[in-house]
Each structure stands twice: as structure tokens, then as C-alpha cells.
């Protein structure tokens, strides 16, 4: 088992009232799954993804990731954990504007303290695999949305994560570009990477092996 959420609650206090963002979430994810999270705006999809990605905390419940109990880890360990096992893909790509494609890909490796020569090899490998060798010295602003997202996925993959978290990865793309990305995810999943994606689109959700529906922070 890759990760397990038990009775996760997350809330904010607003005007004396407790508003639940996540309510009693129980979820088990096995390695190799491809899960689509669906639900209307404000249903807690992104929050759930952030909690799984350890970018956000929760107020109650237990979260185990590869037999480590995330809820009791210190921030530093937590960051080590997700640095090693999780890759993120965002709706608005979130590439670093002042870095080239190559440098963007290199970034996570630097933070993992991988040696320079090894980094170069890994980046070259990834550029090759995604067919973006010709774009390696361009800055994100010089790429189309689809190409940027391609770089975003490549960057998420470069450190060989076990899990990819994608928050509406095709939200800013047109249908052809979106399809390409989804095909890519499917291919990655076939190679054994676990993927959890948030999506609005039924069609994209179909790529997944399991669909989780959220409404007002609850799994339905």
C-alpha cells in the first residue's frame, strides 16, 4: 500500500463557525493506481490533493505514507519524504519564469542534492523522452501552454517519484493538448507510476482506474 488516509478532518474557523474543508476522509491508495478526484468547485478536491502532497496540514485524523505516519512527522522529515516520492503537476504549470526548460527540470534534482554530472544525464534523458531537446534553452514564456505543461510533467517525473499529484493538469489547455497530456499520464501509469489527478472533465476522469467524488469536503 502506498498511502492511507484515516478519518481526515480539516476545517477553518470563520465568524465563529467551523467550516469543514475535508470531512471524514478515508482513502487507501495502492501502488500503480490511477485515481481521478471529481466534484464541483469548492468541494475540497485541491485541498485533498494538497493534504496528500503534504503541502497542507489537516486538523484531525491519520495519514500514513509508505508506513510513515505523516501526521507525526516534523516538517523537515515531511519535506524529505515528498521530495523523494511525490511529483506535482499544476493547472497553471508553475514553471519558474526566470529559468530555462533545462534548468526547470534540474531544480528538483538540485534540492535532492544529486551531483552535477548525474543531474545532467537525468535531464538529458528526460528531455529526450519528452521530445523537447530542441526547447531546452527556452524560457517558459517562449513555450505554448501544452509545451509548458509537458515540461511541468517532465519536471514532476524527473526525480523518479512513486506518486504524481496533478491538480487539473489540462485545465488551461485546449482539447488536443489536454488529450496528449492524458495519454502521457496513462502511459506513465502503465509503467507503474501511481497518479492522483483532480479534474472537472468526465472524459479525463475516464483515464483513471478509480474515481472519487467529493461534495462539501465529503467523499460520496
Amino acid at each position, binding site marked *: 500500500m502506498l498511502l492511507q488516509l484515516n478519518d481526515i478532518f480539516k476545517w477553518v474557523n470563520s465568524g465563529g463557525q467551523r467550516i469543514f474543508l475535508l470531512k471524514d476522509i478515508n482513502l487507501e491508495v495502492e501502488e500503480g493506481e490511477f485515481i481521478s478526484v471529481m466534484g464541483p468547485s469548492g468541494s475540497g478536491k485541491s485541498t485533498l490533493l494538497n493534504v496528500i502532497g503534504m503541502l497542507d496540514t489537516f486538523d484531525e485524523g491519520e495519514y500514513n505514507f509508505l508506513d510513515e505516519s505523516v501526521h507525526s512527522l516534523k516538517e523537515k522529515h515531511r519535506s524529505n519524504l515528498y*521530495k523523494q516520492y511525490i511529483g506535482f503537476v499544476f493547472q497553471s504549470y*508553475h514553471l519558474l519564469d526566470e529559468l530555462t526548460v533545462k534548468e526547470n527540470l534540474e*531544480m528538483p534534482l538540485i534540492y535532492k542534492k544529486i551531483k552535477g554530472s548525474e543531474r545532467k544525464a537525468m535531464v538529458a534523458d528526460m528531455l529526450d523522452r519528452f521530445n523537447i531537446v530542441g526547447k531546452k534553452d527556452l524560457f517558459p514564456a517562449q513555450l505554448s501552454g501544452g509545451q509548458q505543461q509537458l515540461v511541468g510533467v517532465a519536471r514532476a517525473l524527473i526525480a523518479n517519484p512513486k506518486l504524481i499529484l496533478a491538480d487539473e493538469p489540462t485545465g488551461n489547455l485546449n482539447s488536443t493538448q489536454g488529450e496528449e497530456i492524458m495519454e502521457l499520464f496513462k502511459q506513465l501509469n502503465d509503467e507503474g507510476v501511481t497518479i492522483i489527478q483532480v479534474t472537472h472533465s468526465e472524459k479525463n476522469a475516464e483515464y483513471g482506474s478509480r474515481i472519487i467524488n467529493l461534495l462539501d469536503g465529503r467523499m460520496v
Partner: protein
Amino acid sequence: MLLNNLKIAWRSILKNKLFSLINVIGLSIGLCSALVIGAIIYFDFSFDTFHKDKDRIYRVTSLFKSEGDEFPNRGVAVPLMRTFREGIPGVELTAPFMNTSFSKIENKKQDLLFKDGNDAILADDAYFQLFDYEWLAGDKQTALSEPAQVVLSQKKAEKYFPHKNMTDIVGSTLLYNDSINVKVTGVVADFEKNTDLKFNEFMSLSSAKMFNGKDIATNDRWNGTSSGDQLFLRVKDESSVAGIQSRLDALAKEHKNPATWAANDERLFQLQALSDIHFGGEHEDYPFNNSDHVASMKVLKSLAFVALFLLLLGCANFINLNSAQALTRAKEIGIRKTLGSSKKQVVRQFLGETVILTTMATMLSLLMAPFLLRQFADFLPQGIDLSVLYSVKGIIGIVILVVLVSLLSGFYPAFVLSKFRPATVLKGQFTKGDKGVRLRKTLTVFQFVVAQVFVIATLLVAKQLHFVMNSDMGINTETVAYVRTPWRDASKVKKERLFFQIKDIEGLSNVSKGGAPPASNSMSSTMLSYFKDGNETHQPTEILMGDTTYLKTYGIPLLAGRERMNDSIDEYVVNETFARAIGFQDPKEVVGTVVKLDTLQIPIVGLMRDFNQRSLRSDIKPLAIKGHYNGMSFTNIHFDLGKNPEQWTKSIDAVEQALASVYPDEELEVQFMDEMVEGFYRSEKSTVQLLKWATGLAILISCMGLMGLVVYTTERRVKEIGVRKVLGANLAQLNLLLCKEFLILVGIAFAIAVPISWYLIQEWMQEFAYKTSLSWWVFMVSGVGMVVVALAVIGARTYRTANINPVESLRNE
């Protein structure tokens, strides 16, 4: 990692060109002034630090106390030298020397004649034991042991004996003052490092008599002190200083001036450490008779403060802009964190950027430094330069400065930035209660307080300077000039000839002979005694020397009595202050009374109107004018150039011709009274100059800071402005809305700055006897001026923001 950080830092600097520019320029201005002022301060602290045993070298100086006034004298009475030579416990070495000068030096062999025999001293071998010169030729132990022996510095030797080997010079003979044959017994290298010991001709002390000097062995004048008579000594160790001082106290008491008028006076002998000499001690007395610069601790301290404040302003800018920018960079940090960056790595990255910016600023400031230094050249000592900045010490200092400034200005922003939570910033939800706001506002207020204080101070100091330079001193300073006859050539005939030549020049009127002008830096003072009702009053009185036309030349009217009968009669004309000082309610009644000078009875025949004898820092002092008697003659010739300035050049040319014809060998100049008065306020003028610069720079930095803040704030409020516009707000309302926030800050700064500057100026004015008023309008003008400047800076930006089409600002991604 490091390289990567640097690369990213460099790119993000380029990306935010405006912010980076403001940062770098603001910081480099602060750094530049810090460097220049640092070099100035270092210069003054580098004097005479190279001597062996420098911590054990002391000088004995005299301090005279009379009627609450203190008069320092860097010399001592000659018999004290003898006492020390005979041995004082705790003193390891006594090295007395006396300033001297020679009218003529001839190298007969090479047929050369030299005239500038200044920078010369009479010294003995002890001098060279105390101060370690490098001997190029001659024997250090005995070079000055006999009369008529001289040691020359290398430069002097090269001048007196051109194209000769140093070793050949030793043994040669020089003819001094037409009649004294002196053997050269040594050549020493000039000190290369900064020193106040700028002597280059060392005549043996035992030849003092030949040069009409005082002989240590026989002189017994315990109550005559000349500033050129120097007593240096080396103590055994630090602990013997107290013992020597108490011996000095005892000697001062033992040899107190026995004259009745001096009954209440006191003379102290004080030990002055070698390291204090350059700073002139408490009274800021010049180090030696031939020194042209004394370092003022007060000035250095204020300089250091100016540097510190300008530097802090630059740092404040930095913190302000970078923490303001933080939010625009939040996304980047969010991404970095999701990619696995730790807090520490973010901090390191932003500190890296700060270091790069600071280094750039330092480079820039090093380029600008020479220009800034030149601005202050007028009141800086000669020989100061920035080479220290490029020495090992200087570079280490600069590196430390860069690190300190980087930490000071980079730490807070880096810390703020690193605290962002990726999940929130990536969603685009910035925390509404932006915590940095209060800090940034505080920093902006701080910047404006400093700038405002500088502005007010500059205006008030300039006002005071204008006031003292333009207030009526009671004498004619505009059209009067004078010439000084050479003191070495005391020939009365020549003086008379010059006098009559000048008197005949067309356009000059009221030509008179006399001593120093009525207002000058030199003064002579004596003790007059006055009997009234059986009581004797001793009145210290300043004495002016002049003939019977002198007062007319300077436009000083007689209020009562008459002018003296002739130039040499023992009669006084006194001023009103003198009359009041010896007890006359109505000064006019002083005419007809008699005062006593030692044993001489001198009648007071006239009363002149009060005038300021010195700068307006000091009050009017009791004063009497006398003619020349006792065979003394007048040294100066004073004249009125008349009301027609076009004639002046012609008249002055004529005077200079007369000077040249009477004294062909001397370089004499016409001295103008208005220049003399200006000279009184040289230090005030340099203060104004310094303040002007500091003010300009402070305003510049603060405005840049303000601009940065405005840019940032307005950008953040673009959406709000769009909404307001859609709801019908017009341009003026929007501008007001945007400016208000900043004007309040400037207003707060003003409120804080007023009392601070009022206090500082009040303190500064203490030393003036005559003060300009601290008018409210000065404060108002500077406040309004600041608001106008701030408004210009703010307005330029807010206008643009208010003009943005709401369709654009409200469109969502």
C-alpha cells in the same frame, strides 16, 4: 548549488530592473559616503602610529586658566626642559626641541641661496632616540651633540645639495643667516607614513644662542611660554605617568607667576599622549607650529554619524523594497518548496541575491567615491586620498561592510519570503493582513525623519551662517584691506617708505599704521589695574595697536573724549565693554580716568564704540587701543579702498607694486577684511557644505525608497482601483486615495523630525554668542518642501495606476 543560486539571483535581479536599480543606487550612495568618510576617519587616525614605543611617548603642554577662561599652549616654559633633563623619576628619555626658522641658508660651494628655512627645529640627539628616523648618512648618536651642527631630511638635503650623494653631503658646510657656519652631520629619510612631525631641518639645540634662541641651560623664564618650545619624553612604563604628572603639578605650583595681577591665574602642565597630538586634545589646538591641520574629534564623530545614517537609509530601502516584493515572488517560492526546497535553502538564495546587489553597489560606490571626496576637498586636509580603500586593510574592511550590510538588509526579507506556505501561495491567496506593512511604513518614516532632520539642519545652519556673516560687526569690513610687512625685516625706514608710497596711491583713503586689524584671530592681551574707592580691579584687556588714523580707517566712531595726541604717547582709547567692566554705569564717564599697567600710569582719553573683535561666536571683550611705544613699531598698513569697486583693482595693483619695490625679496599680499571675516566661519561653511550633501543624498535615497513602496502598493491595489473606477470614482479621487497613505507617513516623519532637529541645532548654536532665531517658517518650509518632493514621486506613479483601464485590471487570468 551555489552557482545555481547565483545564476538565479542574477536573473531575478535583471527581471526586476527598476527595483534592482533603486536598491543598488540607494545602497551605493550610502556605501559611498560610508567609504569616503571611512577613508577620512582612517586618515586622521593613521598619524604617527608607526613610531617605536609610541605608547610611551608623551608631550608636556601648558594650560592657562584665567577668569574662567582657558588658554591652551602646546609649548612649555624653557626651564621646565632643564628640570626634566636633570632627571625626573619615571622618565626614560627627555627630548626637548624648539621651533625655529632661518632667514637665509647658503651653500657657498655650489653658490646656492635658499630662503624658506621653515619647518626647522632646534633639537638634540635625544630627539632621534625618541623618534626613529632612517639614517641615510651620519651618526645618530652624536649628530647633534655640538653647536653648529645640522641634520637634514633627505628632501631638504637634495634641495640644498643638488646632485650629490647623501654620504658626501655629511661634512659639508652651510652658511646660515649670513654669518653662522654650520656643519651637516647627518641625513635622515623623510617619514613616508602620515605624521605631524613635518620637520626637515634639525639644528643642534646647543646652537640656540647663535640663532637668538633660548638656551635651556641658562634660561630662567618660568613664566614665558612659547608654543614652539616642545618637551617630549618617553616614560619608563604606563605606571610612571601618574608620578610624572604629580611632579608636574608640583613644579607648576612652585613656579607660579608671582605678579600681583596673576594672583588668581593658574597654569597647569599636562601630559599629552602621542596619539592625542593629532586631535589637539580638548581645545583642538594644532599639533605643532608648522601644522596646517588638526583633526577634530567632534567633526569626525559627526561625519561618522552622517555615514551611518546614509548607510542605514540605504539598508532601509533594501529591506523595504525586498519585503514588498516578497509577494510578487511568492509563487516562485511556492514552486520551489513543492520541488523540495527547504526553508534554509530559500533564505540562502535570497541572501545570495542581497550579496550580489550589495557587491554591485559597492563596485558602484568605489567608482563614485573619488567624486564625492572631491566635493569635500575644500575642508579636508592635504594628502588625503582613497588609496586606503584598496589596501589589504581597506579591502578587508569593505568585505566586512558588504557582509554586514547584506545581513542587515537581506535577512528580514529572506526570512519573510521563506515562511510562505506553498499550498496557499500557489492558490493565489495571499494573506490579507500583510505583516510586513508596518515594518515597511516604519522604515519609510525613519528614512523621512533622517532626510527631514538633514533638511532643517541645513537650512538653520545656513541661516546662522548668513546671519553671522552679514551682521554688522561694528567695523568697516567691506572696503578695508591691509598689508603685513615682513617680520624678519624690521627696518623702520622701509616701513615708512612703504607707508608713504601707499598713502600717495590714488583712491585710497585713511591710510593708517597699526598692528593686527581690529577683528582677527590674533590678539594680545594684558592686565590693567584700576583703583576706585580704595579697591583695585584687575581687568584682562585686549590690546589693539594703531596710529591715530586707525580707528577712522575701520569706521569705529569715538563716543566720548578725544583721539590720542600722537602715535607714541601713553594714552588709551577704550571700548564701552571695558568701561562697564571696570564699573562705570555710563561708559562715557571712563574718559579722564587713569589705569595702571605694571608700574605705568596711563590715562584713558577716549571711548570708542563697541565692535566684535573676533567671530560672532564670542562676545565683545574689554579692549584698549594704544600707539607704539617702548620702541615697538607698527607692522601693518591699513587702508580704505573707497566706495567705488571699479577702482579697487587699480588701487590694489598699485599697492602690490609698492610692496614689490620696497620688499623685492618677499612675497607679500594684500589682505582683505571681508575675507578675514569669511575666514572666521570656515568651519561653519564646511558644515553647510557637508550638510548640503548629506541632505541631498538622504532625500534621494528616501525618495527612491518611497517610490519603490508606491510602485509596489499601487500595483497591489490595481484591482481595487478598477472596482472603484467601475463604481464611478474619478481620477482626482483615486489619486487622493493613493497618495493619502504616503503623505500621512511623511507627515509623521515631519512631526518626529522637528523636535530632533530643534534640539540638535540648539546644541550646535551653543558656541555662538550671537544666534539667529530658530524661526518657525524654516521648519514649515522644509516640511512643505518635503511634502512637495514626496508628492511628485508618489503622483507620477499613482497617476499611471489610476489611469489603467478597469477592463484590464479586472480580467481574470
